Each structure stands twice: as structure tokens, then as C-alpha cells.
């Protein structure tokens, strides 16, 4: 009698153990090749001019015009040794006003210094490395992206990646923080403001499918990537044009950094495609079924299509 249950019970316990492993993060997922997060390795490079002061240009390409480098853009404004703005008809990059720096310092001390160090350099007063990386030299766009999307301040420091959430800080506060961090080691890219009037959704669609769809999916719905990381959904209407441009130019977290391989006009095209098309899906064929594709379609076809017709058979025929 009991031997009949031995095999099933044995198999069930193996199944239970195997699925338990799923709930212990990291047991089966050894991430190798994880770069040390406290050092940001970017090409060393600074440009010093009397008008614009010293600008750290490690994060932008020095070769291609109109691709996010102030010194190779159509127009550049500097004042009293500070870079104010630069860009072209496609995107205007501007640093936050100098007046924000002092407010930013106070805000940083209250909100960010516990993880990033009081000087935003990833070092705590005892000289040890903090949880948060060195922020000096990341530029205003980077800070504005992380704070305005709510990823920072981080609430779960053990998470693999900081997720988008409702920001605790206002957009102005984000710029204040950006202003102060940038003042420590002025860098680019500055905060981009894409001008979508001349942008082409068609070109944007083409570029999106080559550069972005591999992580974000062709419909921009986002998905899980390796080892607990993920590419967020771009269909979320909280994603602003400014944030799209910031992400493309600064490459936050695991996202690649697009510099010289995309001109500002191309970035504006992609931004237009994301904010005008992907975030406003028109489904001329009917209900979008979540945009998940053939899996959802299969469920609908089987459950509603075949299932519904089987119910009709049930009505027509006998049940005996």
C-alpha cells in the first residue's frame, strides 16, 4: 500500500526542492564578470577653455559633430568659466542654473551622502568605499535621470538594479542635486531637451529596432535580462522625452552608452518614436492583448476561440 506512494512522494519532494531554489536569489545565479561598481572607467579627457572652464568630456565622443559633445555642436554658450548650454536644433543640452548649487549641496547631504559619501566620491569619512559609487564626473544628465525617475534615492540597496518608482524629490530638486554634483567635476552630457518638432518617427522606428529593441522589445514593453537585471518598459507614460534622451546618452546601469554612433538628430528621432508612438499604441486591429505577442494570442485562441466553440458544442450535443 505505502509503496504505491513512494515514487510519487519522492518525485514531489524533488520537485519541491528544485522549485524552492527559485526563491532563494543567487543560489543558482552566479554572476561572473560583474565589473566593480565603485569605479567608472571612462576614457580620460578634459577640455579647458577660458570661457567654459574645465569640462570633463570622458562621457562623450570627441570625433563626431552634433553627437553630444559641446565643443563639436552647432552652438555653445559659456559664461564666466562655466558651460551653460550647447546643442543644435535637435537637442539642446543645458546645465542647471548656478544658483541651484548651494541648495543641491544641502539636499545631497541630507539625501545622498549616506550612500555616496559627503563629497559624492564614493568614500565615507573613515576612508572606506561606500555602497554608492563615485559620482564626480558623471555629469548633470546622469544625476537628473536617476533622481527624476525615482531610482535614486534607492530604497532597497540589496536589489540587483534600482527600479523606477515615484520620485521622492521634485524635478527642481533633481536639478539642484545635478547642479551640485556637476560643480564638483563639471562634465557632460548636460541635461538634454529634445526638440521633437522636426523629428521623424519613421527614422526613429528604424533606429529603435536596430539599437533598442534587443533589450526593450520592439514594442517597448521591457523584459527581464540576465541575472535579475531588466530593461524597463518604455510604454509607461511617466517616461519623459528628456529621460529617454538622458538614458540614451548616459547609459545608466546596464544600458549601453550611445555617443558617437548616434547623432543628436537620431536621438531626437528615437525619442519622438518612443514618446509619440510607443507610449500611445494605437491598435487598429482591436484589443492589444498586452502587446506580449503570440503567447497571449495563443491563450486567447485556445481558451476563447476553441474553448468558446467547445462550449457551443456542449450546448448543441448530448451529454451522457
Amino acid at each position, binding site marked *: 500500500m505505502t509503496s504505491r506512494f513512494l515514487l510519487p512522494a519522492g518525485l514531489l519532494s524533488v520537485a519541491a526542492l528544485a522549485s524552492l531554489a527559485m526563491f532563494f536569489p543567487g543560489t543558482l545565479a552566479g554572476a*561572473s564578470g560583474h565589473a566593480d561598481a565603485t569605479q567608472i572607467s571612462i*576614457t580620460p579627457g578634459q577640455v579647458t577653455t577660458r570661457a567654459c572652464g574645465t569640462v570633463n568630456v570622458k562621457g562623450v*565622443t570627441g*570625433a563626431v559633430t552634433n553627437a553630444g559633445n559641446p565643443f563639436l555642436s552647432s552652438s555653445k554658450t559659456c559664461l564666466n568659466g562655466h558651460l551653460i548650454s550647447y546643442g543644435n536644433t535637435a537637442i539642446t543640452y543645458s546645465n542647471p542654473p548656478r544658483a541651484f548649487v548651494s541648495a543641491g549641496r544641502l539636499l545631497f547631504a541630507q539625501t545622498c551622502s549616506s550612500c555616496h559619501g559627503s563629497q559624492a566620491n564614493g568614500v565615507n569619512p573613515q576612508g572606506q568605499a561606500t555602497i554608492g559609487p563615485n559620482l564626480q564626473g558623471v555629469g548633470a544628465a546622469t544625476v537628473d535621470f536617476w533622481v527624476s525617475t525615482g531610482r535614486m534615492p534607492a530604497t532597497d540597496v540589496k536589489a540587483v538594479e534600482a527600479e523606477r518608482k515615484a520620485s521622492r524629490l521634485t524635478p527642481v530638486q533633481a536639478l539642484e542635486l545635478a547642479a551640485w554634483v556637476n560643480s564638483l567635476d563639471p562634465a557632460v552630457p548636460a541635461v538634454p531637451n529634445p526638440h521633437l518638432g522636426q523629428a521623424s518617427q519613421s527614422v526613429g522606428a528604424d533606429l529603435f529596432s536596430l539599437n533598442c529593441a534587443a533589450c526593450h522589445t520592439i514594442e517597448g514593453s521591457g523584459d527581464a535580462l540576465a541575472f535579475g*537585471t531588466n530593461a524597463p518598459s518604455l510604454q509607461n507614460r511617466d517616461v519623459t522625452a528628456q529621460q529617454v534622451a538622458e538614458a540614451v546618452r548616459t547609459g545608466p546601469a546596464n544600458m549601453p552608452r550611445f*555617443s558617437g*554612433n548616434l547623432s543628436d538628430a537620431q536621438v531626437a528621432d528615437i525619442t519622438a518614436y518612443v514618446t509619440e508612438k510607443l507610449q500611445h499604441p494605437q491598435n487598429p486591429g482591436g484589443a492589444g492583448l498586452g502587446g506580449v505577442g503570440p503567447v497571449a494570442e495563443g491563450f486567447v485562441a485556445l481558451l476563447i476561440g476553441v474553448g468558446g466553440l467547445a462550449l457551443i458544442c456542449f450546448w*448543441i450535443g448530448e451529454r451522457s
Partner: protein
Amino acid sequence: MTDPDHQPSRTRVPMPIAALSDPHMGDAAKDPDRTEKIIGLVLFLSIVFFAVAGAAYWQNWSPWTFGGALGAGLFALGFGLTAWGKYLMPQGPFVEERHTLASTPEERDTMSAALVERSAVVVKRRKMLGGLFAAGATVFGIVAAFPLIRSLGPLPGTSLETTGWRRGMVLVDSSGRPVRKDTLVVGGIMTVYPKDTVSPQTGFISDQGQAVDQTVLIRVSDQPFTTEPGRENWTPDGYVAYSKLCTHLGCPVGLYEQELELLVCPCHQSMFNVRNGAVPQFGPAPRPLPQMYLGYNDDGYLIAMAPYNQPVGPGFWERNS
């Protein structure tokens, strides 16, 4: 178990002798007149729906009104007819005898005898003719296969083992722009093709260039590094290039995670570490992505210093792995 007040008995009646007056030929519905009215209403509704569908098409209303009205009309029509069949037509149950499929043993013997005896004509008496005919038909079958199969396309030859890359070819992006030393900053990625594959018709990369020569170029650091022993100068200024064709099933490996330094194939999630020669560390891919030996030409553009040293993409029988 019978209840004479309700339904005709469920005894079976052979169909041919059932007269129209037999209860088995009557309506199954409890209230045939009311049922008829309901079915009639449904059928009438179908006409209305079809009219709406026609108007939707003619006036070019939104697509779902045309389809919805058409579907509703079809459903009403079908429902009406089916309900008519179910409630107002004779349900029976009637019985039909199955005739035996099999023939009698005598008939089977006659058939087998005919086959055996008459084929003896060939087998015993005209063996050579039978053999020659069979041979002729077989040879025809073989020869006929040639135009049917062989003419379809070219022999593979070495086409599966080579790409279009040659020593000195300039790397260009999808618009034909070449790559310089600081086109990408660290953490950047782009797809590159040989310059010669830019199509004069479209200005873009040819089909062959996209499909086979596609290469993924990543700026992993600003210093050269070694992916594997023997490849010391393959990564000038921290640029590394791998074939974008996944070695599993040929999908483009376009998903790059910058901090993990990991290329992930979107199709079946094979994962390749770009620092150590794109060796697969998870997923079904069996072999590393072939790495390209990069260098610069005199104009400062990135070039291929040699073709790929192995066939790109998925495995096949002739591949000497």
C-alpha cells in the same frame, strides 16, 4: 425509466419506417411555438446585423464595426439554424445498423487467390521482365529526383564557412559611416558591416552583409586587453568585435549589459562574456562568438586585420570545430 408526460421514450426506432406521426419525428422543444418565435427573432436579428455590416463597409466606419456586425450576424444565423435543428427537428433517437465491413471468408480467399495466382505470371514465368521493369522505374525515380531537388539551389561549397570580411576592410555602421578611435565611449555598442557591402541601390547594407557579416563592436574599456592568449593586439583602445551571429541558431546578439559586460542573445538567452572571448556562460549556445582582429588604417578608421578565423554562426556537419 420513462415518463410519458414528458418526452417520447428513448427506445430506438429504425429510421426508414418512422412515419411523420411517430413521436420520434416530433419536436424536441417543450414549447415548439415559442421556440419557433425565438429562433425567428434571432434569424431576423441576423439580417439586421448583416445590414449594419454592409453599411459599415460602404460608409467605411471603423474596422471593428464591420467585423463585429458581420460576426454577430453570422453567429445569429448559425445559432438560429442550429437551434432549429436541435429543438424543432426530429432528434430520434434513431438507430442504424452497421453493416459488416469485412467481406466473407470466401470472398477474401478469392481475392487472395487472384493476387497470388496472377502475380505468379510475373514471378514465375516472366521474372526477367518484371525485374527489368522494376529497375527501369527505379532508375527513373533517381534521375527524376535531380531536377526536382538539385536544381533548387547551389551546393554549399565553402559558402557556409566564410564571410565577406577580408584584411583591410573598413568597419561601417548601417548608414555607411566608418568608425574612428573615439566614436564610442566606454560602454558603447554598435553594429558594423564591411564597407563593401553597402548597396548602391538603397545606400544601406546588402542582405548578405546584414545576414552573415554583421559584427557587434563594443568599447569595453579605453585600454587594450587580451580576451584569450594569442589575441594580445586584437582590441585596440579597448574596442572588441565579435560576430553578431549567435552560435546557437544565428539570431543577432544585440543585447548588451554594460556593467555585467555580458552579451545576451534575445532568442534563447545564451550569455557571452565579452572580456574573455565571448565564451558562453549560460544558455544553449555551444561555442564562443568568433572574435575579429581589429586594427586601424592610415585614415584612422577601424578595420578588420584578418577575416574571421572560423565559420560564424550555428554549427553544421562540415564545420571543423
